């Protein structure tokens, strides 16, 4: 079968990481990976190369403005945006994991391979409206992640977290599948857009089974974005997984799920207007629950990773508010928020690596005084936390601003007030991070332990943190470029929501 250049163009961004994913396990076959430095280098190099090449290719594609497709894969601007988003996250993750796995004392090529598979799955997931491919994409990015969460074999918690993630994830996937089957079965087409159109034409838009299908489909997405009450896997899985993987999950899974949700619900299922209305109301309810529960629970955490997990839950709440507003500008704001969120959370998790917190030593007490020992990291931490809390002029504020603005302009003032109150609560626990970093001296015990331990060397993680901090700052000062030039165009050209 011969592929046209256009088809190649659509396929290549996925193909390159796939190749990397296949190559890396070959390198690690039967070798003592921990001692053979060059093998490690080669594996990480390959992974980075794959991600980088794909990124380079995608940005090139973005600049040409072409929106090619390959069968059910539609590499439109929104998909390109997703690709760039995921690849950046992956690149940061790879860099961080080099340091992190060193600290943990082991390196596995499989990890990188799984990560790359996951990346491919994510890109696929967000680039199609065909349900079969969508489902495959979902599984392709989920299954490696299940494995990645449980990958720290020395820790019982790792396996436990992986198991929990897997089981809940499998249930959610089954629901997702059932929902899709119902819609596609009744609509007679596996392309959701076409099915929705058919259903509308046949007057079946309000068929109860279609609605059930839509609800179950939505459940699948909400699980991935860890919206309440589908969120409970999140803190456990994050705590179980290596820091970089937790960061990757918090960012990429959520981001891709939101983009796919955007593509499917307001996008493909748009003909089913009833579904859209229900979506708005149910998302409103769940967003409130997510904001309240995520923030409140984050408040009482002692473990930084769990705090960040609940914080990521609460951020899902903010992002869901974009669906409550439901306007193109809100979605554009959501994409913008995702970009900043990527930087903030990858940075925050990267900090844990950069500070050399290994194993279970990720409580707030373990952070004490580190900000002064590592000033650059400390400044970056301040940027991330304040941005997460939505303090201007950092990027996080502008994300919230755009969403709240649309909420207010669509008459959801109450929701906006709730949102700001939630971010008030969130400010407290983000400040706690900074309190530990800057305002508290390490306990004598911790000082003694620290002097026993070798000095922390995490150059790559540190670099990623700085890059992320740069992005957050840029989000505060170059928001026009990011919002109009990037997210808005992704939406305009990809989804045609803004005309």
């Amino acid at each position, binding site marked *: *079968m011969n592929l046209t250049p256009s088809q190649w163009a659509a396929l290549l961004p996925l193909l390159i990481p*796939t190749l990397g*994913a*296949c190559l890396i*396990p070959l390198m690690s076959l039967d070798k003592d990976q921990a001692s053979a430095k060059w093998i490690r280098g080669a594996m990480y190099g390959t992974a980075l190369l794959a991600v980088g090449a794909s990124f380079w290719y995608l940005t090139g594609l973005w600049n040409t403005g072409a929106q090619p497709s*390959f*069968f*059910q*894969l539609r590499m439109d601007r929104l998909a390109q945006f997703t690709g760039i988003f995921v690849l950046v996250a992956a690149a940061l993750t790879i860099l961080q994991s080099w340091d992190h796995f060193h600290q943990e004392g*082991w390196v*596995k090529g*499989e*990890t990188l*391979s*799984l990560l790359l*598979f996951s990346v*491919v799955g994510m890109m*696929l997931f967000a680039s199609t409206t065909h349900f*079969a*491919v969508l489902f*495959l*994409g979902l*599984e*392709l990015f989920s*299954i*490696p992640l*299940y*494995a*990645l969460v*449980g*990958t720290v*074999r020395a820790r019982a918690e790792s396996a436990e977290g*992986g198991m929990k993630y897997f089981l809940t994830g499998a249930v959610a996937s089954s629901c997702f599948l059932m929902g899709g089957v119902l819609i596609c079965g*009744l609509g007679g087409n596996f392309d959701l857009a076409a099915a929705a159109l058919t*259903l509308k034409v*046949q007057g*079946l838009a309000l*068929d*109860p*089974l*279609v609605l*059930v299908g839509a609800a179950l489909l939505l459940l699948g997405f909400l699980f991935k974005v860890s919206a309440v009450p589908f969120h409970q896997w999140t803190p456990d899985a994050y705590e179980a997984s290596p820091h970089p993987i937790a960061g990757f999950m918090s960012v990429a899974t959520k981001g891709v799920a939101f983009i796919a949700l955007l593509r499917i619900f307001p996008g493909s299922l748009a003909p089913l207007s009833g579904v859209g209305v229900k979506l708005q109301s149910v998302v409103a309810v769940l967003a409130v629950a997510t904001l309240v529960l995520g923030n409140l629970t984050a408040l009482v955490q002692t473990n930084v990773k769990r705090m960040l997990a609940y914080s990521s839950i609460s951020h899902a709440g903010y992002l869901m508010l974009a669906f409550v507003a439901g306007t193109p500008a809100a979605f554009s704001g959501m994409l913008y928020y995702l970009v900043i969120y990527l930087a903030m959370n990858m940075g925050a998790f990267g900090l844990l690596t950069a500070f050399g917190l290994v194993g279970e030593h990720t409580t707030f007490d373990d952070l004490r005084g580190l900000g002064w020992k590592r000033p650059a990291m400390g400044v970056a931490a301040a940027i991330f936390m304040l941005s997460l809390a939505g303090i201007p002029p950092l990027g996080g504020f502008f994300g919230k601003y755009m969403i709240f603005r649309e909420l207010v302009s669509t008459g959801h003032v109450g929701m906006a007030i709730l949102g700001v109150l939630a971010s008030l609560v969130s400010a407290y626990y983000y400040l706690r991070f900074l309190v530990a970093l800057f305002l508290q001296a390490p306990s004598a015990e911790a000082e003694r332990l620290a002097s026993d331990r070798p000095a922390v060397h995490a150059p790559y993680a540190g670099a990623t943190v700085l890059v992320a901090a740069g992005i957050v700052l840029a989000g505060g000062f170059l928001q026009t470029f990011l919002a109009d030039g990037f997210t808005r165009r992704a939406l305009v050209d990809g989804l045609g929501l803004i005309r």
Partner: protein
Amino acid sequence: MFITFALITLLGALAMLLQKNVIVAGLCMVATFFGVAGLFVLLGNPVAAALQIIVYTGAIMVLVLFVIMMLNSHEEEKAESPRPIQRWVSLALVAALAVGSVKLVLASPGVKALNLQGAALPQATTLQKVGAALFADHLLGFEVAGLLLLAAMIGAVALTKRNL
């Protein structure tokens, strides 16, 4: 015929749910898979029925049973935890789901219409057609499925390989 296979399927599943012994439960599950295969036959899809038996019963269930044996975990579950709220809420939910599903299926105009028009349609699922579709329209899916298997394999290896 339909009723028979449906009953095999559902009763097998129920038995699995209620069976304390894990191995027996696994065997009940096998019965369910056979029932499903029967339903597929009734649906005029012998290919699917064959795959159902080969893959699910032959591969997946054997794998599960294998693991059960390996882990010696055929011990019975101990008494329910002291807080039974989980059980009652779950039961209520599942019951509602069961009753609701029947009602919804019956209430669905789409299903009704499809049932009327579909009963008359001929059966045309052949392996040949499936193969053609797989490599023509669904090349992407096919390749992704392959990747998925590879990824799962690597994942399983990464999780269990002993000398790491």
